[in-house]
């Protein structure tokens, strides 16, 4: 038996009391101001996210809500809020304040949420890979259909790619359907169709292994659910002081992660909550609540359609793919000029969407990594502060 086990109690019962400086009341004013500023900034930043830049038109909204560009902005917003929050919580603050009630409960809860968010980041990163996969299939279709004149060969090629795309997209709603990949699975994907029938061909297993990058049984929906539990606005006496910013930051974390999960296909999203109980009367929360409602609407639409969508570019991809498949199904050489014109427009749109994905997905992944880092760093710093005040015993051990 190790000596450590005997002495586990020693070194885990750290009770360090550095000399505690009594907080001066003069700082109180400053603190209140900082908290108010934080609230305002949060409200402002999320307001910006509500209205995409004026330069984008309805036809080609490059950063409409839930587009890749918008998600990147969302992550930027998150990083700004996080940085400000960290400054509020740690810098120039007496460590002991961080351990007084109700913070002694609220901060560990926030840290716990934050750790769950790390797993969400990882899941979404895998999801972005899946989206890129769809993008590449779409690019095949584009390159086939862009050729002039369109002949049987190109159409068949496009059809094959588009069918694979649709099959991939439909897979998400099937979980754990043990499709053993057959040795000689043909690549002609069957239509996914509206009934969400998961095609059991080789593509099924492939996409599942692409998306299901997380541990078996891990569920994004459940993770978000767990993160949003205990998310309760502080009331009464608690609502002054740091408890409120902690609540704000918690809400921001949960919202951003939820938005990511809603947008990007990732492991096991069925049953994703669509509503967080953020009190409507909180001023700073209005933009977030509005965004939440918009995204929830898109999510419900997606669930009806059994699509992988919500991400604006994915929705476009799916829509165009379906339409182009119809074209390929009914294609006869030579095709009518009018029809060809329509198709060309759609192909162009598809190409544009792919281009945006090509430009934005890898940077999005990098940003997610950055979020991961910053969050880890902040957590470490907060843990250090907590340890200083000897509250190690009340926080999770690992």
């Amino acid at each position, binding site marked *: 038996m*190790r*000596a*450590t086990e*005997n*002495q*586990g109690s*020693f*070194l*885990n019962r*750290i*009770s*360090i009391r550095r000399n505690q400086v009594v907080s001066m009341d003069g700082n109180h004013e400053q603190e209140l101001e900082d908290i108010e500023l934080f609230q305002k900034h949060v409200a402002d930043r999320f307001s910006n996210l509500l209205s995409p830049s004026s330069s984008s038109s309805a036809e080609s909204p490059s950063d409409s809500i839930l587009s890749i560009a918008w998600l990147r902005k969302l992550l930027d917003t998150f990083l700004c809020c996080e940085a400000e929050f960290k400054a509020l919580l740690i810098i120039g603050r007496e460590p002991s304040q961080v351990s007084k009630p109700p913070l002694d409960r609220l901060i560990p809860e926030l840290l716990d949420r934050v*750790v*769950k968010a*790390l*797993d969400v980041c*990882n899941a979404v*990163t*895998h999801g972005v*890979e899946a989206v890129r*996969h769809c993008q*590449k299939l779409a690019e*095949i279709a584009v*390159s086939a259909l862009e050729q002039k*004149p369109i*002949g*049987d*060969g*190109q159409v*068949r*090629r496009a059809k*094959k*790619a588009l069918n694979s795309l649709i099959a991939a997209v439909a897979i998400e709603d099937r979980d754990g359907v043990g499709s053993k*990949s057959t*040795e*000689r699975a*043909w*690549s*002609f994907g069957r239509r996914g169709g509206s009934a969400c029938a998961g095609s059991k061909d080789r593509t099924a*297993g*492939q996409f599942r*292994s692409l998306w299901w*990058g*997380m*541990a*078996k049984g891990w569920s994004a929906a459940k993770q978000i659910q767990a993160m949003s539990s205990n998310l309760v606005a502080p009331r009464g006496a608690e609502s002054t002081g740091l408890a409120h910013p902690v609540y704000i930051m918690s809400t921001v974390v949960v919202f951003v992660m939820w938005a990511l999960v809603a947008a990007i296909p990732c492991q096991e999203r069925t049953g994703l909550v669509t509503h967080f109980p953020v009190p409507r009367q909180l001023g700073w929360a209005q933009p977030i609540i509005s965004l939440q409602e918009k995204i929830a609407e898109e999510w419900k639409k997606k669930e009806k359609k059994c699509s992988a969508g919500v991400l604006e570019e994915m929705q476009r991809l799916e829509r165009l793919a379906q339409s182009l498949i119809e074209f390929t199904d009914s294609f006869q*050489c030579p095709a009518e000029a009018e029809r060809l014109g329509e198709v060309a427009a759609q192909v162009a749109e598809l190409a544009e969407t792919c281009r945006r994905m090509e430009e934005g997905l890898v940077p999005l*992944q*990098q940003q997610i990594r950055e979020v991961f*880092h910053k969050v*880890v760093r902040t*957590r*470490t710093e907060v*843990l*250090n502060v907590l*340890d200083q005040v000897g509250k190690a015993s009340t*926080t*999770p*051990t*690992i």
Partner: protein
Amino acid sequence: MEPPEDSKIGLEEAEEIILRWDSTASDEARDKMIFDGDRLEVDRYLHAVDRIQRSISSISISDDQAKVNSAIQIAMARLEDEFRNILLIHTAPIEADSLTDPSSSTHSSSAASSSGAAADFEDDPYEDKDDDEILQRGDSSNSVSYRSTSSIREIDLIPSDAVIDLRSIAERMISAGYLRECIQVYGSVRKSAVDSSFRKLGIEKLSIGDIQRLEWAQLETKIRRWIRAAKVCIRIVFASEKKLCEQIFEGLGTAIDDACFMETVKGPAIQLFNFAEAISISRRSPEKLFKILDLHDALMDLIPDIDAVFESKSSESIRIQAAEILSRLAEAARGILSEFENAVLREPSRVPVPGGTIHPLTRYVMNYISLISDYKQTLNELIVSKPSTGSRYSGDPTTPDMEFAEREGKTPLALHLIWIIVILQFNLDGKSKHYKDASLVHLFMMNNVHYIVQKVKGSPELREMIGDDYLRKMTGKFRLAATNYQRATWVRVLYCLRDEGLHVSGSFSSGVSKSALRERFKTFNAMFEEVHRTQATWLVPDSQLREELRISISEKLIPAYRSFLGRFRNHIESGKHPENYIKYSAEDLENAVLDFFEGCPVSQHLRRRSH
């Protein structure tokens, strides 16, 4: 039948061959694979494809062009299926044997690695001894350094004739503009092969949440397994996949082999590193230090291989992630050491150790820093800042300070170790004050400081870092404690045996006050019995120290008693009930001293020599 020659095959004939193998058209075409069958047929088919492709530039009539394009699409669809089929046939996860024993070079599903295998074969890099003995009581096992020179070993995953076929297909697909399809097929089949290898290596998919919930002991096992698996993954599995991509795709276009490689391994690589990353962000606590250092060292060892295997621009993110994890592990190690120091300083237990023996904290700390000295190669690189000690001018009673002399010419790590010993003693000093008996205070310190000295002397690395100067200082300290103990206990006992106050001038007796003498004897007996009873239950674990202490006591006690007896026994024996006063002979006392510091109680009465 004449074997068809490339230039002689006509366009129509080529088209016919292609249409014959259109799998959407006939069952027969669907059920058979070209590349499974007759090599002549394979050649014919490939020539047909080439012929058709060549004709694109020369055909101008749009009808014919459409026909040709259609034929190309059929051919490409076919080739895609053939490509997939060849890959599937030759996909078997790397056999377990070749994963654990790098010196074996052949096994069933991969060809002999002689062809093109570049590797330097190093002695078994899997020599990682399981360091189960961490922090066992009293021992520090020799931990084998996890640093070995890198040894990438590429296995031929697919036999070379199949590789040639794959390449010839890829060539044609790429030049027909079907690169994307080719990459997709390749990536999907090879990725699932890598996944199977991962499963065989026991690489688990664990979320950060999962890892948080596990006990550290379980995690240690997983870390060990991960280290072994990661080496194989990077040096063999990934390296071999890269080689395969090069074999098939090199020179066929710009960085196509890179694209295929990343398509295959990006997901698995991220999955592999996620585990190490999760460990690097786990909460810091002292017992984690050594496994984290193991992980750090193993990863550091792998970095050159990671950089080599993932050298392309598109795989930059993987290299970056590995470097990030490494730096986080280093930070974690530093943080843990710092936390350990704090914990030692502030360890708050107040319950005094019975018998004044070695405190468990002392044992734990000394074992811990012995192990640290085993890891000094790594820690010397990681620990670059000096410990933050108290200042002798701060007057802060809660933190000791470290004298300048102790800091001369020492590495930061050595300074930390000395500092840990300083604060250990500081803490022990505080604990010693909880003993009610002043003698026990000193005995306790003597025992513990002596133990520290013995542990340092027992480890050459530790001794070298701590330095003989400080060792001498500590030796002096425990000797002083021994002296203080003796003073605290025995001065008053021996006081009973002094001469002054016994002689009375001008009285009836021969100059000695009998009553005073009787008092003296009674007091001495009582005191000695008390001390004997009490201090028999005290413990000096180190036998040599115990002996020395007893001898030192005897040296002072026995002659004093003997001489006292010699001078004054007559006066007692001439009075009433001498046995009440002279209870013990010198030999009795000598024997009694043997009971001291044994740690067990003795019977109430001392053995007496019967008069």
